[in-house]
């Protein structure tokens, strides 16, 4: 027998328990805690790079990691907002931040045009380590964001998955960047941006199945 709407309302009202509303600030605190843990894990396992340890980093390092940090924060902020649905929410922040970060590979391409060996300029095998370890670091941030989203009610799982991947990839790249000794624009613009693209693609493909409700 089909239940009536009145019966359902009575049942739901009777079952009601107090809940703590999901707050954007609490979500951001969770994301930042995951980022801090990721950074601490990188420092504990690999140590700080010489430049970071002594405060002698290149301008490229500051620009690249600053843009990636902003992208990570914008992405995390959008993901946390997506947990609380709202008609009218546009979630445009990460798109602009991503556009700014995309300047880095373009700058890297220009740098490579004038260099003798592209492979050497990008960092050779070290670039592959950067990509792999940035992705591993990103997993911690991604896990925190997925936990938050699963508590919430994201109404666009593909977009939530994509932004989760981008945010985690960017913050993972920044965290790993603390131990990376190469701070040329060719290396930073490629080896530290590729993890963002890969994590975004993985999030878009793999996460929606876990985010539907």
């Amino acid at each position: 027998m089909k239940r009536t709407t009145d019966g359902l309302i009575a049942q739901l009202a009777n079952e009601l328990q107090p809940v703590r509303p999901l707050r954007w600030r609490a979500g951001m605190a969770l994301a930042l805690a995951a980022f801090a843990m990721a950074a601490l894990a990188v420092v504990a396992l690999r140590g700080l790079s010489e430049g970071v340890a002594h405060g002698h980093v290149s301008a490229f390092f500051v620009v690249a990691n600053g843009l990636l940090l902003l992208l990570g924060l914008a992405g995390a902020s959008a993901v946390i907002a997506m947990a609380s649905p709202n008609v009218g929410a546009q979630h445009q922040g990460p798109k602009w931040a991503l556009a700014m970060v995309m300047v880095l590979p373009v700058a890297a391409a220009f740098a490579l045009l004038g260099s003798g060996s592209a492979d050497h300029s990008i960092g050779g095998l070290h670039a592959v380590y950067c990509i792999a370890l940035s992705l591993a670091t990103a997993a911690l941030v991604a896990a925190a964001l997925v936990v938050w989203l699963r508590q919430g009610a994201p109404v666009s799982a593909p977009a939530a998955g994509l932004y989760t991947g981008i945010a985690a990839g960017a913050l993972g790249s920044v965290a790993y960047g603390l131990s990376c000794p190469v701070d040329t624009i060719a290396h930073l613009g490629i080896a530290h941006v590729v993890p963002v693209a890969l994590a975004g693609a993985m999030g878009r493909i793999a996460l929606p199945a876990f985010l539907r409700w």
Partner: protein
Amino acid sequence: MTADEAALARLMGAAQQGDRQAYAVLLEQAGRWLRRYFARRVAPQNLDDLVQEVLLSLHRKRATYDPARPFLPWLAAIARYRWVDQLRGEYRAATQELQDNDAVDEGSEDAVLARISLDRLFARLPAAQARAIELVKIEGRSICEASQRCGQSEALVKVNIFRGIRKMAALIEKAQ
């Protein structure tokens, strides 16, 4: 009598703190609002099921409402999500055409409610996709009937339904 936005937001805030009486009133008002919201966009025989689905979702996800923000855009996002979900669901053969008297009086909607309406989702679709969805998923016609009515091939009707629903799913929060 229909509660206004501010009253619904207060009731939801009280419900989050465990006030069962406020919650019962809220659900009753939300149920009424949802019936008007879905009018013309849901086959009458599916309306009760959909309203109940949304009320259940509201209950399960009530922690995601931020008491500092308006209530209806939050409810509308959940309603749109469940509605798109239902459109994706299996087509039920035994459906009846929508009756003219099911239409809602749009003149009574204020600007805010119009912005969160389902029509805003439809308006973002190409006409062929919107027509295919209306004929098959809302009016309950077969693919063959829909094809004859709108002049699209049967394959195109299916493709337009699939693409239209996918597009609306991506626009649940954005279309206003």
